[in-house]
């Protein structure tokens, strides 16, 4: 098994017929993801990439049994798309869209509490369970099958970590890109917890960055409940205070959300912290006892 998505997931694409949705749906299908269709309001009944197009998520659930959705709709409509998916009973909602207004997400976060669903993102690369399902925009070939889980706020830094893990003689079970926005559906701690409980994951790479306290909360949880080794990296040691570094959430506000403070907390909680991002893979291999 793996977490969140696997070869049995029935995936739909919201914003299916748009350029982003089309491009990445093709890539996901090529990877072997079980894409059962897509949603574009007003284009229901047609087909796109040889898959059915539905007018609503509810229709996709009723007719195609969809249980996972990936969202590519523009920022002004993304909050609506997430709520529609939750309302229709989708279990795992992955929102790739970048640039959703924060106050929209405040409302979304509250709204989806009433439903049995898990939101990943927004502003994230998605989720991949190696050789089973890619529900995201990551380059699939980098994620060689194995038994290491990854939790990360960032896209390309996730690919970097997966590549290093593979080059060190290991591989990936599931990689979860939780996103870099101030409000996200699944926190670092929740993603780590999923991987801790996954029998097919032996070790976890946790990649964070400046801003907020998600990594600190995850670290304290790991200290109490962890049963697998965790390698941690926090990006942004050299970022100045008060300037946003690309991700809307990556901004140093107080004393506790600098890279230095976070690394100290992680170390105190028994996490194997690497200072250089070039050492993520080697560190994990050293702990697991594998040589490439």
């Amino acid at each position, binding site marked *: 098994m793996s977490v969140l998505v696997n070869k049995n997931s029935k995936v739909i694409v919201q914003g299916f017929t748009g350029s982003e949705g089309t*491009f990445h749906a093709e*890539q996901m299908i090529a990877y072997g993801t079980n894409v059962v269709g897509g949603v574009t309001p007003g284009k229901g009944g047609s087909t796109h990439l040889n898959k059915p197009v539905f007018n609503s998520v509810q229709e996709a659930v009723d007719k195609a049994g969809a249980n996972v959705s990936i969202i590519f709709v523009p*920022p*002004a409509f993304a909050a609506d798309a997430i709520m529609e998916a939750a309302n229709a009973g989708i279990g795992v909602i992955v929102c790739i869209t970048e*640039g*959703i*207004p*924060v*106050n*929209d*997400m*405040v*409302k979304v*976060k*509250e709204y989806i509490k009433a439903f049995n669903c898990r939101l990943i993102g927004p502003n994230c690369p998605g989720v991949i369970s190696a050789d089973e399902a890619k529900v995201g*925009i*990551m*380059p699939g*070939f*980098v994620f060689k099958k194995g038994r290491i889980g990854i939790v*990360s*706020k*960032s*896209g*390309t*830094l*996730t*690919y*970097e970590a997966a*590549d*290093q893990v593979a*080059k060190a003689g290991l591989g990936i079970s599931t990689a979860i890109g939780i996103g*870099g926005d*101030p*409000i996200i559906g699944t926190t670092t701690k929740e993603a780590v917890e999923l991987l801790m409980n996954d029998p097919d994951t032996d070790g976890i790479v946790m*990649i964070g*960055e*400046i801003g*907020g*306290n998600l990594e600190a909360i995850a670290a304290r949880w790991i200290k109490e409940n962890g049963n697998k080794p965790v390698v941690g*990296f926090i*990006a*942004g*040691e*050299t*970022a*100045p205070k008060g*300037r*946003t*570094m*690309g*991700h*809307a*959430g*990556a901004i140093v506000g107080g004393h506790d959300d600098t*890279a230095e403070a976070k690394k100290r907390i992680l170390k105190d909680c028994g996490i194997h912290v690497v*200072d*250089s*991002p*070039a050492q993520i893979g080697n560190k994990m291999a050293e702990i697991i006892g594998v040589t490439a």
Partner: protein
Amino acid sequence: MNLHEYQGKSILQKFGVSVQRGVVVDKIEDAVASAKKLTEETGTSWYVVKAQIHAGGRGKGKVQETDSNGVVLAKGIDHVEEKVKGILGGHLVTAQTNGKGKKVNKVLIAEDVYYPGVSEPSEFYMSVLLDREKGRNIIMYSTEGGMDIETVAEKTPHLIFKEEIDPRVGIQGFQARKIAFNLGLSGDAFKQMTIFVTKLYQAYEGCDASMFEINPVLKTSDNKVIAVDAKVTLDGNALYRHPDYAAMRDISEEDPLDVEAGEAGLNFVKLDGNVACMVNGAGLAMATMDIIKYSGGNPANFLDVGGTADAERVEKAFHIILKDPNVKAILINIFGGIVRCDRVAQGVVDAYKNIGNIPVPIIVRLQGTNAVEAKKLIDESGLNVHSAVLLQEAADKVKQVLA
């Protein structure tokens, strides 16, 4: 997006929040006439002249050219021109600016609100912001107004209160009353505070702000409650639904290089180091800055070129980076996923040739799709470009060129 005090106050007023009234002036000649008009509207006979810059600490800050503070009191219409002269057009240095200070292009001439009356005036602190952990907006407030809130948080944390707002229903009456009680108010002032807080929160949601900081909120001697200052930051992602606020952007307050980069679709932040970088993805960009430090350098910038690192973008990024005379080397770090490395490599080579001579060594690290072809392309280009595949290799090469 940050706003000036006068812009923030104009938004607050639109939502019915009481503010200290004022007029904005950008020419000394207009100062006296504007002040007279303010007196007609408000009855004030004293005036507070306030520099309008995007930085806090104006009151204690000094204008370099005149030694005036950034906020001064003019005790009568005869003193207005002289006080405005001391600030307008000068460079104001505060605890939040650099040593050169910020040029003051506008001043706000505001009414005096600390007049004597039936009771003593008192100052409070109030802000509205997102509690990221809870995913909800909160109102943070304190009896210790007019002071630096970080100092209050350090020395007397029990004097800072927080009220969490449920996004489904917004601020409720009992919450506004609790805030007014906690601030020690009664009678008329109590009632005015409940109105102030309610409207303030509604303004926060209504204008899609990401931060309000009102310091001080003043209870006047005749029991009115008003915002004397307003630090308003709007959510850049929500500006599409507020074109009138988007037009309030003051580019002169921003670093010109950041503005140029933004126009080219690059996410750029200028820093003070000696090794520039060009990366795809914000997280990897921060990690690359960290690698530079571990290689003995200091990052000269943050630069995320985004998903499409084509020749045109790479060339623009080069132009922006090379404007900084402190740059001794450039590290390009691209993890090719959807974007192919050989295309990026070709982009680097083409951009290099278009620019002509780049006077500093370049280290290009390309990993991911078609990385091998990309390395070959770089190695055979005959340019002053070092290629690397692993991140550690790139770090080692940075160390070499700095040595």
